[in-house]
């Protein structure tokens, strides 16, 4: 298992070093600094083997986190753990930065002691950790009941929720957040497109509520024979959607999903991600980008880009940004656009065109003249034109059909819970080659 965990700043100075196993010597800390951090460009893999010692690293802002081991560990686990560690630290003290880490080093050691034992990850759920590891030091004076409550939560079957939660108003917020990803050829052919969706839930519910959640998944609907129901047609005109794959928060009973295709769970308190899913079929692409790049001689280029919105006219897209890359030897750019604002950003080697909002079924255009310095450097690799936006619907066509709440022990019923649902479609990597 994991033999040790080190955290470094961007210069390679150690901020945290915790060794769990005897086979990891002190020199491992330096080996990583010398061979990975100071080597900069040459290291091309997140896993490095130095003298029979393996290092797994991730980098967040300019902080390096590295796990070290001499055994044949589960690599998936190690990286998931490192990411979890980042998440835990963020929820304790915000951004991962050198200052924050130095300011909280005692806390971090305490956390590392708790969530890794002999290199084996233990319960790392922040909501539970926060009940007994606090920034003001561990609560030493707690009653016996509290102690046993803590330990049963840490080890318990429902490790993500504590008992005895009470709210005056039982409320639920559901956000369907989708990232639509696209790679399009210059000719407008879709090379690849997929939607990576997340269902984020904020639950403020009393007791230990049992929830049941339903979406317009083709598999489920086909099973219950309701897919033909025309009244259930969603915003994008599809009755049901085909989900390629989905993953769930650990609270969801996976075996039940496998057999009955029903999503049932006892939710954690507060905000968490219930589900992730991926679809590739029948995605309604909110925008189409049509590029036209013409090289006029060796010192001039003409670029014209048209964007077309492709959704119901009654809806509005927001925060639209088109990023048109320019060659490294650009000396000047003239931009003309009818709508929005466009600017050449030399530091980013791109023309950035921003539109506050845009209705459905509309079209907009930008053209630019790029002047180039004569250069004989190697040819420009023409990065794709990328786009950012936000639309108030789910490009995959996903719809929430129901979310039922049962709490057998307390006296509130499904009707008493106030539920909110919201759909947001955002651009992921939305690129068109030019």
């Amino acid at each position, binding site marked *: 298992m994991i033999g040790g965990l080190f955290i470094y700043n961007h210069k390679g100075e150690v901020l945290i070093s915790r060794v769990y196993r005897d086979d990891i010597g002190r020199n491992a800390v330096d080996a990583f600094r010398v061979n990975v951090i100071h080597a900069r460009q040459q290291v091309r893999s997140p896993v490095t083997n130095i003298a029979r010692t393996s290092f797994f690293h991730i980098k967040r802002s300019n902080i390096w986190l590295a796990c070290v081991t001499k055994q044949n560990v589960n690599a998936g686990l190690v990286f998931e753990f490192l990411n979890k560690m980042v998440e835990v630290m963020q929820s304790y003290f915000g951004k991962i930065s050198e200052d924050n880490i130095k300011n909280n*080093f005692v806390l971090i050691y305490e956390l590392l002691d708790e969530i890794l034992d002999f290199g084996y990850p233990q319960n790392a759920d922040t909501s539970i950790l926060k009940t007994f590891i606090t920034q003001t030091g561990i609560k030493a004076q707690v009653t016996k009941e509290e102690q046993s409550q803590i330990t049963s939560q840490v080890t318990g079957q429902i490790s993500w929720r504590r008992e005895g939660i009470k709210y005056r108003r039982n409320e639920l917020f559901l956000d369907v957040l989708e990232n639509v990803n696209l790679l399009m050829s210059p000719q407008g052919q879709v*090379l690849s497109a997929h939607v990576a969706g997340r269902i984020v839930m904020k639950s403020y519910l009393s007791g230990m509520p049992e929830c049941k959640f339903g979406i317009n998944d083709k598999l489920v609907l086909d099973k219950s024979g309701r897919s033909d129901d025309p009244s259930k047609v969603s915003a994008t005109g599809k009755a049901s959607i085909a989900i390629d794959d989905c993953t769930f928060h650990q609270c969801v009973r996976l075996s039940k999903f496998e057999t009955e295709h029903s999503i049932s769970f006892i939710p954690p308190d507060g905000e968490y991600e219930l589900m992730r899913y991926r679809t590739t079929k029948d995605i309604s692409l909110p925008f189409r980008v049509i590029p036209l790049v013409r090289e006029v001689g060796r010192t001039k280029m003409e670029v014209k880009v048209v964007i077309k919105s492709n959704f119901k006219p009654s809806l509005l897209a927001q925060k639209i940004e088109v990023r048109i890359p320019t060659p490294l030897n650009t000396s000047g750019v003239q931009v003309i656009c009818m709508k929005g604002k466009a600017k050449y950003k030399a530091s980013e080697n791109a023309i950035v065109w921003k539109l506050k909002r845009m209705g459905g079924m509309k079209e907009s255009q930008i053209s630019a003249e790029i002047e180039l310095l004569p250069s004989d450097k*190697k040819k420009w*690799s023409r990065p794709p034109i990328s786009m950012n936006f936000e639309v108030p619907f789910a490009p995959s066509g996903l719809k929430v059909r129901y979310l039922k709440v049962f709490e057998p022990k307390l006296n509130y019923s499904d009707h008493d819970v106030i539920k909110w649902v919201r759909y947001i479609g955002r651009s992921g990597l939305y690129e068109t080659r030019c």
Partner: protein
Amino acid sequence: MTDSKYFTTTKKGEIFELKNELNSDKKEKKKEAVKKVIASMTVGKDVSALFPDVVNCMQTDNLELKKLVYLYLMNYAKSQPDMAIMAVNTFVKDCEDTNPLIRALAVRTMGCIRVDKITEYLCEPLRKCLKDEDPYVRKTAAVCVAKLHDINAQLVEDQGFLDQLRELLSDSNPMVVANAVAALSEISDTSPSPAAQMEMNQQTINKLLAALNECTEWGQIFILDALSNYVPKDDREAQSICERVTPRLAHSNAGVVLSAVKVLMKGMEYVGMESEFVTTLQKKLAPPLVTLLSSEPEVQYVALRNINLIVQKRPDILKHEMKVFFVKYNDPIYVKLEKLDIMIRLATQENIAQVLAELKEYATEVDVDFVRKSVRAIGRCAIKVEQAAERCVSTLLDLIQTKVNYVVQEAIVVIKDIFRKYPNKYESIISTLCENLESLDEPDARASMIWIVGEYAERIDNADELLESFLEGFHDESTQVQLQLLTAIVKLFLKKPTETQELVQQVLSLATQDSDNPDLRDRGYIYWRLLSTDPAAAKEVVLAEKPLISSETDRLEPTLLDELICYIASLASVYHKPPSAFVEGQALVVRKTQLPVRSASGEPGATGATESPVPQQAQPVQQQQSVIPSHDTAMGDLLGDLLSMDLNPPQQQMSMTPAPQQDMGGMDLLGGGLDSLLGGPSPVAGMPASQASMGGGLGDILGLGISSTTYVPPKQVWLPAPKAKGLEVSGTFSIRQNVRYMDLTLKNNAMAPMGDFAIQFNKNSFGLSPASALQVPSPLSPGQTADVTLPLGTNGPVQKMDPLMNLQVAMKNNIDVFYFSCLIPIHLLFTEDGQMDRKVFLATWKDIPDSNEVQKEIANPNQLDPKGISDKLQQSFIFTIAQRNVDGRDMLYQSLKLTNGIWVLAELKIQPRSPTMTLSLKTRALDVIPQVQQAYELIIANM
């Protein structure tokens, strides 16, 4: 209040100051001081001098302070063992604390202090904590056992902690179960002792599967990793495990998903290949694997490395998912390179157009490594998909036109391979290649270009000039280029001898006289001598037709691939190396991770996604051996093959039809002579083993038993001379070249010559009968001995005898008719087609009622290992169907078939270093069991 200030104290006299602060009366000041100490420790300063002062702070109510002190202790206890003892009392006391968090903390920390004296004190508290009422303490104690095992394995075994740990597998709390599994797995991985091995039976498996649904994500990984080491009893069990693990594929933790994939990939090996179950399971595997590609890049990397293995093992799973491996502009380079690799593996005729378009796009990117690999990938596409070769070549030509130096060089290297794969097809482009000669500065590219020039010298008008230009800087070239240049010029000379004599002399003298490189010198001399002695032979050697190169040159070797499949998700799968390559001490431990035997042999046939006409089913073990010959047998086999090819053509016939006796008389004599030498009346036991095996080798060479050297019992006297008027008959039975023989020695002890021999068998249990007449050189003069072999058939009249194996024989000569009886060794009746298909085996094993199972301890006097036993038995047509390792014991599953169609199934349990093993036989015909048991003992003891 922030803690960062502790990092900045670097004044002189710091230690002294800290000492004072640590001994301060004020709690706050103490705590501050300890924090400073920890900060110094983190940045690598030596603060071990403060040991006693820090330990003094240990006894406190403040949990935060306590934890800091513990942290210090864990770091420095080893360097100050005597002082560490001071802490013991506090630990022991803490283990009794009312607060479970403190109890756990104490036992957790104590396990991390690697000081012998402390370890002694740990045992009692640990024992208690393993039975603590609080699950938090129990789960901590479970891990502590693994810690203690790492310090002192013997102690853990002696104190019975392993049993306590095993009990925790049934704990009511899932996290306790998970940690116990993790600890037990680690212990059984690192400990060679059989007592430490993890007992995995159906019951444990069920417990683990139950806990799997309830424990934390990490716990699920521990459990899945442990499950993957379990070998299911039959395909039904394998199937049910797979079914219960499948839901994990929807977990959001990539570690859980990958470990589940491992269990399923292994599980599928135990379920029949063609079954529908596998097909549906394969379908279920694709989506989660694709989903892993939308996680963090580091996780993606691990996933991609594993997908690379999975695609090689089971190309069907992702065959429709090519597009998801398209490279994104912002992918980190390590993700890009891996995706590229997988794209090539998935390339087929159907999707090649898309792939090529992508690759062309990539070849214009900026990252040099990535561009190079993309160019290489285009070449690989051409070699893999013949229909696309032309398009690939034209794409490569386009790339060469870009004149980007490294692109051109890479392209030339792959074009050389394309020429090798499709000779006489694309040579028209050679002129374009030649234009770029000057720009090549990498050895690979130069060598490739030189090869092309040499290979096609007759089509290139100025080939001699081109090669000559390389020759100028001969000594500055790398060896690879020098060797290539030497060969190319010799080729050129053989093709255009008139114009190039001078050139070839020049290169030969450069290579032989002016070079320090032995390889180069040797090659030079060989060419020189060839050319000077026999130019025609030189032509044949140097310009010989080259074997076509395979399309899958970069596939992992099948046995390595199978091993790596067992390590999915782990570091080994990331490195694509077995753990022994990067983990110390790994080689000592016998790993249980093995795929069933048949997968290894099933694989070599299926080379790519497109062409796999070979059904992936069980193939005879024999074939597997011929694919990868083991070292010791290879030599003998080869010799045997060679000799039998060159010297003994009739031998081949003999295996088809029993040839007339006369033809093989000489050989029979030899064979008989050898037999009597080896296994004659003289006691075999006294013969040194090496000599015996050498004899076997000799037998091989003479072609008497190339494919089979079954065990031949020593000859026995069947008919003593006094009973047969001076004729003494002794004999035995043997199988050679799949023909059964009765080997007889006839001795004339009478005063008169004998002749007119004939032989007849009575009806017997297996219908054995002479297949030809008895040929004895007659007359047999007094005192003379004759060795005779009698081929036997098995289609004679059948009558059940008592004893079963009894054979009554009548022998006639010119004097009288004599009767005698002998016992047929049952292994004579084993047939060469006695290898049961694995699935049939499982089904049959289940089908035969348990009452038909007979167990017996049999001797293994030489303490052979399973491989040795299995090889030996196979020579006598007892075939090993599968092998697995349970708790350190090897289980061999074997089958054999008798000539009359009776199947006998066997399970052989071999305990390492034990003189006995357990043989369980299962068959519908119980009568043969004692004989089969006896045959096992004989074969194992005697060969």
